[in-house]
């Protein structure tokens, strides 16, 4: 009897495995065709001397790219940007969410306002940033009026700051919504208990809310990471393919490699980038698993 039951269960598991596979199949086949196959093509390109001759050179391109000063600069800048902008995007949006979690008037209006940058077309954004941060733009006018001196925002160390502001402006609202939702889904009884035990609001926040927010933090971090790559479009339209060197991102490197038909270098750079991504996201997953466990089901 027992043995039969076990057999039944494993058969059910297998059946489940097969049928759930059927559900995944359309998506997987599509991803295979339009995402994985292209990625394999990228791997192929990364191991040939150039796309026209197509001689196999194995890891030579990786060696070239890793030793290339431009790639190093790009990778460093990108890492730097993500390391600063992504945590900022997470923390600031969390703060905004906590702010709106207070029952202030016009809450839902504010929420919509904060989301609105998502729908502004690229041209308007570029125009506005251009008008604001150009050497002869509005921000410098204010600086001069306040007795300061002009700063060339897009062509100095400040260019990363301007880009970070642009990135935050575009993505804070979205992240905030994610956090607001997470905040409201924290079980009310636990918060009540904490309050009765006269925990102050800071304690409540760090000891209880943060626990429940940890899966959302991971989610928001990954989304912000994705979006931090997308901000390149605006940067590109603002600065062209040759920005000031602190703003020189991996995408600039790849873009310029494409233009000079160095597709093998582009591919190698892309693979190095994805390897780093795999490590970073893997770590994030591990961290989340560690912290999120005790609040799960």
């Amino acid at each position, binding site marked *: 009897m027992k043995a039969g039951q076990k057999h039944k269960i494993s058969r059910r598991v297998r059946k489940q495995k097969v049928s759930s596979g059927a559900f995944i199949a359309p998506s997987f086949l599509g991803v295979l065709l339009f995402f994985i196959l292209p990625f394999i093509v990228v791997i192929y390109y990364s191991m040939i001397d*150039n*796309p*026209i*001759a197509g001689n196999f050179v194995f890891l030579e391109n990786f060696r070239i790219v890793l030793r*290339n*000063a*431009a790639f190093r*600069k790009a990778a460093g800048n990108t890492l730097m940007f993500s390391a600063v902008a992504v945590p900022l995007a997470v923390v600031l949006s969390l703060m905004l969410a906590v702010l709106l979690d207070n029952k202030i008037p016009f809450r839902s209006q504010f929420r919509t306002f904060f989301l609105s940058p998502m729908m502004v077309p690229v041209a308007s954004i570029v125009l506005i940033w251009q008008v604001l941060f150009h*050497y*002869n733009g509005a921000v410098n006018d204010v600086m001069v009026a306040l007795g300061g001196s*002009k700063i*060339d925002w897009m*062509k100095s160390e400040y260019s990363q700051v301007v880009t970070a502001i642009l990135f935050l402006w575009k993505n804070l609202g979205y992240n905030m919504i994610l956090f607001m939702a997470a905040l409201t889904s924290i079980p009310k009884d636990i918060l009540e208990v904490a309050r009765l035990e006269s925990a102050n609001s800071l304690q409540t926040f760090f000891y209880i809310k943060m626990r429940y927010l940890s899966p959302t933090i991971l989610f928001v971090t990954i989304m912000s990471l994705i979006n931090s790559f997308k901000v390149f479009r605006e940067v590109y339209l603002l600065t062209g393919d*040759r*920005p*000031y*060197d602190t703003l*020189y991102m991996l995408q600039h*490197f790849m873009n*310029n*490699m*494409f*233009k*000079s*038909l*160095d*597709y093998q270098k582009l591919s190698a750079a892309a693979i190095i980038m994805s390897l780093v991504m795999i490590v970073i996201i893997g770590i994030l997953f591990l961290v989340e698993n560690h912290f999120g466990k005790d609040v799960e089901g």
Partner: protein
Amino acid sequence: MKVRIVKGIALFLSAVMMLGLTACGSSGQKEDRPEFVYVPEYIQVPQWKDQDINVMQMSGEKLYYRVWAWDETTGEGSTAYYSLDLSQEGIEPAELFAGMSDGSQDFMHMQFDEAGNMYAAVRTYEEIQETDERGNTYTTYDYENAETALIKYLADGSEGFRLDLTKMMSEVQDEYARYIQYMEIDKAGNIYLSNSESKIWVISAEGQPLFTLNVSSWINGMGRSRDGDVYATMHDGNGIVLKKIDLAAKDFGETLSGLPTNFYGDVQPGMTKDFLLKGDTVLYEYDAKTQTYEEILKFIECDINGSYVQDMCVTEDGRILVYYSDWSLGETEIVSLVKTPSSEVTEKVTLTLGGMYISQDIQSAIIKFNKSSDQYRITIKDYSESMGTEENAWEDALTRMNNDILTGNAPDMISLDNMNVKMLAAKGVLEDLTSYLESSDRLNREDMIDSVLKAYTMSDTLCGIPLTFYISTLLSGVSVVGEEPGWTIDEMIEAADQMPADAPIMEYATKNSMLQILTIYGMDSYMNWETGECSFESEEFIRVLEFANRFPKERTYSEDDPVMPELVEQGKLLAVDQTISSAGDYQIIKTIWGEDVTCIGYPTNSGNGSVLQGSEAIAISSKSKNKDVAWEFLEGMIADVAEDPGHSWGFPITKSALEAKFEEDMTPNYQYDYETGEILLDENGKPLEYSKGGWSFGNNVSYDIYAATQEEVDAVKELIESTTTLATVDMEILNIIQEEVAFYFEGQKSAAEVAEVIQSTIQVYVDENR
């Protein structure tokens, strides 16, 4: 409610996808073979042989043309007008009017209506008698006070009406614009005249002026719709539009937009839709209701060079008649394009010639090749063609080409015009032509000018051969720069510092142009591709910036400005920036300088500083499957020009043709006495020469070119032989510098600040390419 919405969405979606499917189906076919093609058939008009023909109009399947004949016995010319019915074959031309003199008359524009009446805008001049220096009187015309009239000639040659346009035309301020450029007749017989600039005059069928329309922009053309209404093409703020001329409202009626980007104004009645729009390379049909267009055919696929199409019309049985004359091939033809199912046409092996611009000469050569080959066919893929006007459009077009190259779909041949040849050669995109050239029947490797081949050899690859070439350089007098060609940036600045304080140094020198001359080929002073080191922050580069900053910001033109020869005479020019495309160019500069000149070149650390530029060089793609066929085309095109350079601009690329050209340059055009046949002499007893051309500057300064001396020819020859660098400019670097340096030139930043930004940006660029 919700269900209904969901159902609605589902319906909409399936409709969209179906649309997509059909679109996919049709364009999927387009990739391979279209359903129909237009096959050219040539209409022979026997009368046309050896006659001076001027086709004027094609409409209603009739061709109207003018024949100008010279009568040997009387020594007088005569004009006759003919019509030819093209609806049937083998119909003889019918003579319409004959013997209409246009001695004192200038027929500005003529148009025929369906009945065969001719409407002509005629300018009539008074005859006046004048006397020349030798006392001979001759007849000329009073061009100042011309009378303009619109005359209707009935089919029998008699005059229908005559309307004096002189007063009407005088409304136009600019005298040069008092000209009838376009004429069109609507279905009711009303006549529309336009001077192509600002006016449209409408005249009734009876010859009475109806009204005048004023336009603020240029009128690009006029034409009839299928319904017989007349529309004008012009620019409004957002691009080219068609505007209906509304008779009832005496104003412009509806405005039609959404026209193709490469359409410039040539409108004809359509076949099934309202209009045929002729683009440079493509014929479109346009629907006025939906304001959309559709491609009908690509001219080159019908063996027609679209740019040389003079007129066209549609017949009732759906043929398209095209009259074109291709000057580069010397062909004038009437082609009937017959819509034929693709299956009935034998398929040829197709080669593509791609590029960012395909010149007219190349297109004509392709047509010639296609007509003669029954196995192969060359098609054009001009990546810049579908390019819009938006920012980055050029780069998007380049991206599409790069995509094709990277995915192994590179065109078989690549036109090197506007192309980064150096990069393409370095990446192995281009086939080495050396062995093809060596085994060629029509081209002799030994006869090719070595410096041209050397200039086009990059990364050990002879990547292209131009049809002709020329040399760009700086020239200056020996007393100014010495005899040795070539100088560095520092040497040039030093020499400039010796000039008087008010000297402009270079003609029309501005901050930007000076910086460009200094840096265009002299960048090697500040960067080392081998080690990847850049030194744009150095004192030397800042000195270059400061030097360039001494010059005016913008060019200012004034009638009173001294012209170049005057500046040279005053010793205020350091050098002139000149294109040398013939011995004459060199001779003029030498004459202006009044002493021997040195081709000192652009400042650089290597070579003589002069650069060679080729015209219409074509490369073969290393991935092409039909390299031999591609070479056959290339060889034919190059050999045709080399064997008969004719009037093509620039130096020929073979030694023999160049020698022949120099020979001709050195042969004087003596003036002969008509009666005795003796060479005329001047007061000093030297033979008088006719000039071979010349240059004129403002302020009545002009120079003529006479026979070249052996020394002059030798100097040009030496320049050619020593110039082995192709003029490839690294636009990236120029752009980086220009963009940033503007802040310095505007006084917003210091030279050092600007240099720092330039250094950091170029450093990244150099690093990328290592």
